[in-house]
């Protein structure tokens, strides 16, 4: 009974700490999706694939989305003719490289600032390298789901796509996607079909509200499941087992990466989750959790399948896992 009460207290405290950040993320991403015009951005992107990858990886500062919000945005980038390196860099880095996530990580680990700095540095490195690798594939379409591939412009006249007639067609999302469950946000569908200047302020406000409610409902549910798992592990699993896994240099990193993939907790709040393991797990493994989790997890894979074919996701998953392991393991060995 005491254990159950302790577990509930831990669960509640994780939620109390994480909800404000989730709410901030939801509010900001809703607002910015409405007010930032990415067709202007496309002209500013460097042509060089490596620089493009780096630029894409830092776009999170403009679109502070967690790993649930980045997939629709990345897909929109591809369709609007952004170079693949930019879209993939964004897809992998945006959930970590954004002000809200950096702040929440700092809140959780203010006593270990190296975790905050390294989280950003490692995420940026992995995302940029991966996006650069993918840019070797000049035409990304064979790796994309047919629905998305049809909308992606030819690689050569990519820059002309800002005025592509596809953008104006209005119903291709819903029409083309009839066969599969597309997760297009209502808001984004509206954005694509309605030029933003035509929306009245009242309409924008209503859309913003609708988007907030929708994201809170979905992400809140995932957050609750994640917190429940964290609390249950803390209270239920004997300390010796956690310690034996958590102090091994390799086992701790592998365990935290698997946990990150399974728990699928939102990146705005995952640092609080990681914090509950801080006293028993190595710093390297906490970093692995914080870098790998936002890039690839079960929930994100579900979402990414709405852009990529399975093959591409296996490449992404494998490469990201190896890079994160190498980086965090070397960090651990150097300390």
């Amino acid at each position, binding site marked *: 009974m005491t254990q159950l009460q302790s577990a509930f207290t831990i669960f509640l405290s*994780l939620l109390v700490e994480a909800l404000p950040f989730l709410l901030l993320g939801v509010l900001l991403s809703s607002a910015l999706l409405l007010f930032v015009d990415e067709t202007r951005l496309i002209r500013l992107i460097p042509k060089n694939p490596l620089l493009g990858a780096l630029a894409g990886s830092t776009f999170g500062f403009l679109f502070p989305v967690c790993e649930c919000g980045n997939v629709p945005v990345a897909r929109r980038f591809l369709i609007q003719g952004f170079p693949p390196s930019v879209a993939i860099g964004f897809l992998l880095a945006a959930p970590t490289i954004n002000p809200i996530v950096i702040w929440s990580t700092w809140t959780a680990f203010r006593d270990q600032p190296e975790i905050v700095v390294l989280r950003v540095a490692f995420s940026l490195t992995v995302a940029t390298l991966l996006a650069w690798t993918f840019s070797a594939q000049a035409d990304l379409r064979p790796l994309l789901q047919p629905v998305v591939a049809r909308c992606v412009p030819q690689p050569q006249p990519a820059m002309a796509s800002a005025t592509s007639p596809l953008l104006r067609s209005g119903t291709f999302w819903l029409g083309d996607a009839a066969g599969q469950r597309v997760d297009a946000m209502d808001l984004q569908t509206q954005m694509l079909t309605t030029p933003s200047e035509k929306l009245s302020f009242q309409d924008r406000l*209503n859309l913003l509200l609708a988007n907030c409610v929708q994201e*809170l409902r979905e992400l809140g549910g995932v957050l609750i499941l994640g917190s429940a798992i964290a609390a249950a592990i803390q209270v239920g699993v004997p300390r010796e087992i956690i310690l034996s896994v958590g102090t091994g240099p390799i086992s701790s990193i592998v365990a935290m990466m698997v946990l990150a993939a399974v728990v699928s907790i939102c990146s705005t709040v995952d640092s609080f989750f990681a914090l509950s393991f801080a*006293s028993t797990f190595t710093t390297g493994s906490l970093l692995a959790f914080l870098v790998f989790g936002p890039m690839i997890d079960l929930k994100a894979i579900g*979402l990414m399948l709405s852009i990529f074919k399975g093959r591409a996701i296996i490449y992404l998953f494998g490469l990201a896992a190896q890079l994160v392991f190498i980086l965090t393991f070397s960090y651990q060995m150097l300390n």
Partner: protein
Amino acid sequence: MLDLERLNLRNPWLDVCAIALWGLVLLKLWLGGQLHLLIHPAYHWLTIFAGIALSAIALVKTAELLKKTSRQNSRARNSQAEHLNFFPPGLGSCILIFTAVLGLIIEPTVFVSATALQRGVNDFLPITQSQPQSFGQVTRPEEKTIIDWVRTLNVYPEPDAYSGQKVNVEGFVVHSPVLPDNYFTITRFVMTCCAADVYPVGLPVKLETSRDRYPQDTWLAVQGEMITEEFSGKRQLTIQPSSIEEIPVPANPYHY
């Protein structure tokens, strides 16, 4: 299998209810003075802000739903299209509502010795845990709290350096299995961020008799002086008490 459509889980009122209830939970924890059991005081304002904002969103959404014209109604139905397919429609709201109700009914508890033993009471801060950031300006040893002592020890871990200094600390009793029967550990929990990361710190107290006189989880004020004892080959700073008094559980049982 539940027929989700029939249960009408896409009802927008379900979302409003979920958001309103969570706003209520956060505000109740704040107004009921229980936030400090859950998170570090530095972040109370974030929770309070979230409680107010969630309630506001619920109110605005309620107003919108109430005055909706039929044209807007049809748009609202479209907006119910899920943007994630992680949950079946409405399940997210149901989970939120269920946990919020639990949060309203069940009071958060103060951690006790069972948790302390599970997490391991030490006279040092865990290596991967927070590095000490402040040592305060406490110069008089009898004004040091348990966490002050532990922080001091962390910086200069030579127990003999503190022998003979006066001690006056408050905490609860933990019967550590690694200490002999005439020692208990006077313990406090330290919170860095939230209740998920609280960890116990404590100092052994030497008794003339068996520690059974002081049951676990009793809150005590211990006065005396510091001595050095050896436990399983390791010298450790220990309290030689001159007086041990039972005290009520403090309003705020955690150190920060």
